[in-house]
């Protein structure tokens, strides 16, 4: 059992990390793998830790996973009013298509082709590559932002716990360490530049116009999970409790090639404390047709109000609700609500080969409904 002084030390350690993080927190992208399953069931759930794809959900959960070796995974994500634009383009309505560009964000993310890892005997490891691009056009008068990011990194974690005798429950703890290398470019251009670039792409691709950043980050996730009678699970995930990022920024590609000096920037990623609960009734419905029912509810980023006071999000945007069940143990049906927006998807589990698909909204504003964007995500996975 945990004694009082250890618990006190645990609390003090957390408060210390929050305190030192506050002045340094940067709005940098996290080194984390989003996947179609999580996206379809209302975001990552701190109490859901049943397979390799949930490696970033809660570091305390590796003890629950029997053995999962993923040899390859590819995940594609498209963000933005894609279908509206495609329909408008097919109908020859270029005005409507370009009209969709205003006040929106269009993104493409690819996880893989490097994506391999294993969870076995309480240990977890993984190596990933992530390519993420994003175009954000706030309005005609504000500069548009074109972002590109490439991450290559690895994670290693371990979980341990105790079975609470006589209560049919157990308490698990765990950690996940990360090391990743990042290269990034953020180009800001006026809308007129972007329009001009349609006929002359060199406006965007000129070596003088592309700033570049290189660097690396190291990170730590902590987790705690309580499971009661394999029916009710409560998880506390502390993602990026301390994840410093060391970046070297070159103002342009020309500066880099010319041997110019970079600007060193140190920052930390914003920690995310999330609390979640999962109910697994353990029943089957319709003569065994429907099974593996899971209902999950999370409150994400609990200390957002303290860590990011200027950009703190509305309290309702922190909730994530998800439901998952399987049909004949092969087809998983998923739905949920994340950041106030509906999510849905399905998964096909053919043991070695898995396919997951998700459709969901994400809220880019700090208030509900002010800037909701549409996302499509699909992943294929080979694991055993």
């Amino acid at each position, binding site marked *: 059992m945990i004694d009082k002084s250890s618990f006190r030390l645990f609390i003090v350690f957390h408060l210390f990390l929050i305190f030192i993080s506050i002045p340094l927190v940067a709005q940098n992208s996290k080194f984390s793998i989003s996947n179609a399953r999580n996206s379809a069931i209302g975001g990552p759930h701190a109490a859901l830790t049943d397979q390799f794809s949930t490696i970033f959900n809660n570091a305390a959960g590796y003890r629950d996973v029997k053995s999962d070796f993923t040899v390859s995974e590819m995940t594609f994500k498209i963000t933005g009013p894609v279908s509206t634009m495609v329909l408008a383009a097919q109908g020859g309505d270029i005005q409507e298509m370009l009209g969709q560009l*205003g006040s929106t964000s269009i993104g493409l993310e690819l996880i893989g082709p490097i994506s391999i890892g294993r969870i076995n005997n309480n240990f977890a490891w993984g190596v990933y590559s992530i390519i993420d691009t994003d175009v954000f056009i*706030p*309005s005609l008068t504000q500069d548009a932002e074109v972002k590109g990011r490439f991450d290559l990194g690895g994670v290693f974690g371990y979980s341990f716990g105790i079975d609470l005798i006589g209560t049919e429950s157990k308490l698990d703890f765990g950690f996940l360490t990360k090391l990743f290398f990042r290269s990034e470019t953020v180009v800001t251009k006026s809308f007129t530049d972007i329009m001009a670039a349609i006929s002359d792409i060199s406006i965007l691709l000129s070596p003088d116009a592309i700033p570049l950043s290189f660097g690396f980050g190291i990170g730590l996730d902590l987790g705690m999970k309580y499971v009661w009678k394999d029916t009710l699970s409560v998880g506390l995930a502390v993602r990026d409790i301390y994840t410093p990022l060391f970046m070297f920024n070159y103002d342009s590609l020309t500066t880099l090639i010319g041997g110019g000096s970079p600007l060193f920037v140190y920052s930390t990623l914003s920690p995310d404390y999330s609390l979640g609960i999962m109910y697994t009734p353990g029943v089957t419905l319709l003569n065994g047709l429907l099974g593996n029912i899971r209902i999950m509810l999370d409150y994400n980023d609990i200390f957002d109000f303290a860590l990011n006071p200027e950009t703190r999000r509305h309290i309702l945007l922190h909730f994530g609700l998800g439901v998952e069940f399987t049909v004949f143990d092969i087809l998983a049906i998923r739905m949920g609500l994340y950041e106030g927006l509906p999510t849905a998807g399905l998964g096909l589990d053919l043991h070695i080969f898995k396919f997951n698909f998700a459709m969901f909204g994400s809220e880019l504003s700090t208030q509900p409904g002010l800037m909701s964007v549409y996302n499509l995500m699909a992943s294929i996975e080979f694991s055993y």
Partner: protein
Amino acid sequence: MKSFFRVCLIILLSILYFSCEAFFTSNWFQGAADISNITAEEALNSGDPEIMQQVFDQLVIEAADATGTEASELYLQAADLALGISGLSDPAILFEAPELLSGGDGSVGDMFAILTETNLDLDALEDVGVMIANAEGSDPGSVPGDMWLFAAAGNGAAVVNDAADAGKNVTEFLDGYADPLDNTDAKAAVQSLVYALDVLPDDLASEILDNQADLIGKGIIFP
């Protein structure tokens, strides 16, 4: 197996039905949004004129209490919002403009057609010109070239509004002046175009530069 396929079919049909962007981008908690503390950018992104108007009003009050660079920045944000309210920040307008302008006979009235023949909110557009003038007044040289282009549209909207108040169309209204530039708003519109020379199409910029001596004579200042 029959029931399995039935269930699959129902599920797939449901997915097809719900897989529209509107469904997945309709926030269930939209009614709970607190817009008292949102940024101008968030208000713009909402696309909701009422939200933009509320934040615009707030910014104008804050800008009136500020000075120098701070005031200029606030006025420029307010100008952005006024543009959003007017509807001119819709990129589709850029593609309508040449069509509308090329359809006429090249008269001054046609130049204003873009303002009268679209569904722009001309009062809000007039505010754009006022906000940009305030920004320049608070911190001279702080207004970027792109914004002067929108200031010209704002001043043009003021001309259209004045003409409407007088019960005339723009051509009739400006014919009432010995020179159209004797109208303060028309002069401010041309002045804004001069400031926007860097971002104007080459032919229009050349035309303005060709008329430089004439415009200087009418009180137009070149930066």
